[in-house]
C-alpha cells in the first residue's frame, strides 16, 4: 500500500528522528539510580516510622485506659528511643552527612 499521507508522515518522522540530539544513556542511568535510592530511603523511613508510631500510640493508650501504667512507661520509652533513632534514617541532603557525623 502506498498511501501518500502515510508516506508523508513516516518520511517526516524519519527526517526528524535524524535531527534528534545524541542520546545519553549514562545520564539516564544515573538519574534512574538516584530515583531508586530516594525511593528506597523513603521506604526505609516508612518502615521505621510505622512500628514506632504504633508502639508510641500503644503506650499512650495503655496509660490513658488505666491499669497499664506500668507497661506504658517502658513502651513510651522504647517509642521515644525509636523516634529519635528513626530521624537518622531520613535521607541526607548534600553535605549534611559530615556535619551530622561531626556533631556526634
Amino acid at each position, binding site marked *: 500500500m502506498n498511501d501518500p*499521507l502515510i508516506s508523508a508522515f513516516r*518520511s517526516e*518522522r524519519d527526517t526528524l528522528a535524524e535531527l534528534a540530539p545524541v*542520546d545519553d*544513556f549514562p545520564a539516564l542511568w544515573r538519574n534512574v539510580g538516584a530515583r*531508586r535510592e530516594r525511593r528506597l530511603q523513603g521506604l526505609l523511613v516508612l518502615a521505621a516510622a510505622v512500628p514506632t508510631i504504633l508502639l508510641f500510640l500503644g503506650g499512650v493508650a495503655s496509660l490513658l485506659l488505666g491499669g497499664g501504667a506500668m507497661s506504658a512507661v517502658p513502651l513510651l520509652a522504647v517509642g521515644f528511643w525509636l523516634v529519635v533513632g528513626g530521624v537518622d534514617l531520613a535521607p541526607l541532603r548534600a553535605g549534611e552527612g559530615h556535619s551530622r557525623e561531626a556533631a556526634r
Partner: protein
Amino acid sequence: MTDAELRERLSLFYAEHWRKLWAYVARIGSDPATAEDIAQESFARWSLSPAPGWEDRRARAYLYAIAHRALSDHRRRSRRESVLEEDSPDPAQRPGDFPLARVWSRLKPRDRHLLWLAYAEEFSHEEIAAITGLGAASVKVVLSRAREKARALLTGETE
C-alpha cells in the same frame, strides 16, 4: 532482575526508541531542548514504573503515554491547557524542514496528535486511546475525520 540485566535491557530499549520519542515530543509540542528533557524524563519514569514489561509494542505504548503526560504536565506548568486542545509552538521553533507544514498548520492540535501517533508511530486505535486518555471509539471517529481532512489538504483539494 539484577542491576546489570536491567541496565542492559534499558540501554537497548533506550537506544531503539530515543530518536523517535524525541521526534514525537518535538513535533507535537515543544522546542528541541524541552523535547530532549521530556524524552529523557519519560524514559526515567518508564524504567521505575511498577511493571513496565519489555514486550515491545506494549512497552513502547506505555513509554509514549508517559511522554504524553509529561508533555501535558509541562504545558500546565507553562500555564497552558491540555496538549490535545492547545496549539503547538511557533513552527519556527521546530527543528528541521517540515514537508507536511502546509497540512500541519491547518489541522487542529488534537487531529495532528492523533495522526502522528497513527501514521508516524503506527499505533493502533486502542494504543492511541491508552496514550492520550481518549475513548477508543472517539479515537476512531476523530482520526477518520482528521485523515480525510489531511488527505484533502495534501492533495490540494481544500484551500
